[in-house]
């Protein structure tokens, strides 16, 4: 199904205050910077952001932290963003730290219709607190529950007007997995090409999962 691309501002308008937002990006590599800029510009508030890390101030979702758009961050790492650390210590921002592989699997479970995952990661640590330990084939595992979100914001390399997406190198990271786990999926790409240009084998995220495509930069 072909669809017209929307502006980044129109995309940001579809992300209401208080929404839970999964984002692609690892140290902001593979983060949808234009959608993030538009969220800052519209003065979004109370967002719960879910993704790998909070990058650096002024970079990727670090811009959402700087601008006070975020109420809660569910991430694996905040060590490179002193603003996140300061706001967390001051009680202005809630941070839930999740081991990186567990975060990816919980999102995958959310998007795959699974009731959770059993992982050895976090056994015997504070990550285990309040969680069930289940023994399978004689080995203990932590039960980690699925995560879904209101919106996923994705950065792709190429898109076509069906919404089919490709990714480049380490800019892929969390983008493919979050495309399955949110009720509304918005993608921005470096290039939008005519339908048929992307070979089927190169598509990593089928367009059927993508609700909105953001115009390419002019």
């Amino acid at each position, binding site marked *: 199904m072909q669809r017209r691309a929307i502006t980044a501002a129109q995309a940001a308008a579809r992300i209401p205050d208080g929404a839970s937002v999964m984002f692609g990006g*690892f*140290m*902001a*590599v*593979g983060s949808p910077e234009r959608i993030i800029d538009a969220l800052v510009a519209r003065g979004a508030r109370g967002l719960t952001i879910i993704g*790998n*890390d909070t*990058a*650096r101030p002024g970079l990727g979702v670090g811009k959402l932290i700087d601008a006070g758009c975020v109420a809660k961050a569910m*991430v*694996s*790492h*905040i*060590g*490179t963003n002193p603003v996140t*650390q300061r706001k*967390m210590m001051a009680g202005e921002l809630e*941070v839930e*730290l999740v*081991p*990186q*592989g*567990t975060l*990816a*699997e919980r*999102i*995958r479970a959310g998007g795959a219709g699974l009731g959770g995952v059993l*992982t*050895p*990661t*976090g*056994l*015997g*640590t*504070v*990550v285990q607190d309040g969680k069930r330990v289940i023994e399978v084939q004689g080995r203990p595992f932590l039960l980690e529950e699925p995560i879904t979100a209101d919106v996923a914001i994705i950065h792709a*390399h190429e898109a076509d007007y069906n919404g089919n997406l490709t*990714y*480049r*190198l*380490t*800019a*892929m*990271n*969390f*983008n*493919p*997995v979050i495309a399955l786990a949110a009720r509304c999926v918005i993608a921005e790409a470096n290039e939008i090409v005519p339908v048929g240009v992307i070979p089927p084998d190169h598509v*990593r995220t089928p367009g059927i999962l993508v609700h909105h495509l953001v115009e390419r930069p002019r």
Partner: protein
Amino acid sequence: MDAKELIARRVALELRDNTLVNLGIGLPTLVARYVPAGLTVAFQSENGIIGFGAPPPEGMEDPNLTDAGGGFISALPGAVSFDSAFSFMLIRGGHLDMTVLGGLQVDAQGRLANWMVPGKLVPGMGGAMDLVAGARRVIVAMQHLARGESKIVQELTLPATAARPVTLVVTDLAVLEPTPGGLLLRERAPGVTVAAVIAATAAELIVPNAVPEMSLAA
């Protein structure tokens, strides 16, 4: 030779031919400089690549090709990229031969703490909990002392990264191996006496009659 180079050159001797290895950010990254001649080692970066190489010359960086610290890298011929869920399937699924991680503390049981200092520093665990839970061999590369205090302690006072003991601890003073009976002093650094290692260690050590000097990769 400074302490970090010494540690990296000793850790490099743990590399095996035709294996997949993940190096943590910081000191562990240095190990890649000392791969013994004749060995083929594939390095994984958990943000989604196997087969990366040294940073490219200035001006030839690719914004979509970075390591887990966000620094620019190159891709060697035969490199492959993948998403975060797959990256941690490699890590947790027993496909990673070895990981080298930095440490804040290791205790007499061989448990590692390396992701937070409560109330002071909360970087988050990133991929460390998955790496310790899943890699076949876990090597800790760290300085023996921090501000005069031993980082080898009888019982962790910082939050653990995993309950599972690590495989080997390499410091600027010694090589220690966690065993069911306790921490075994395997090797001492060039010019360092057994007495000096014991004096710099806040955990009980098992000390064999002969403790050889450590070899170093060229």
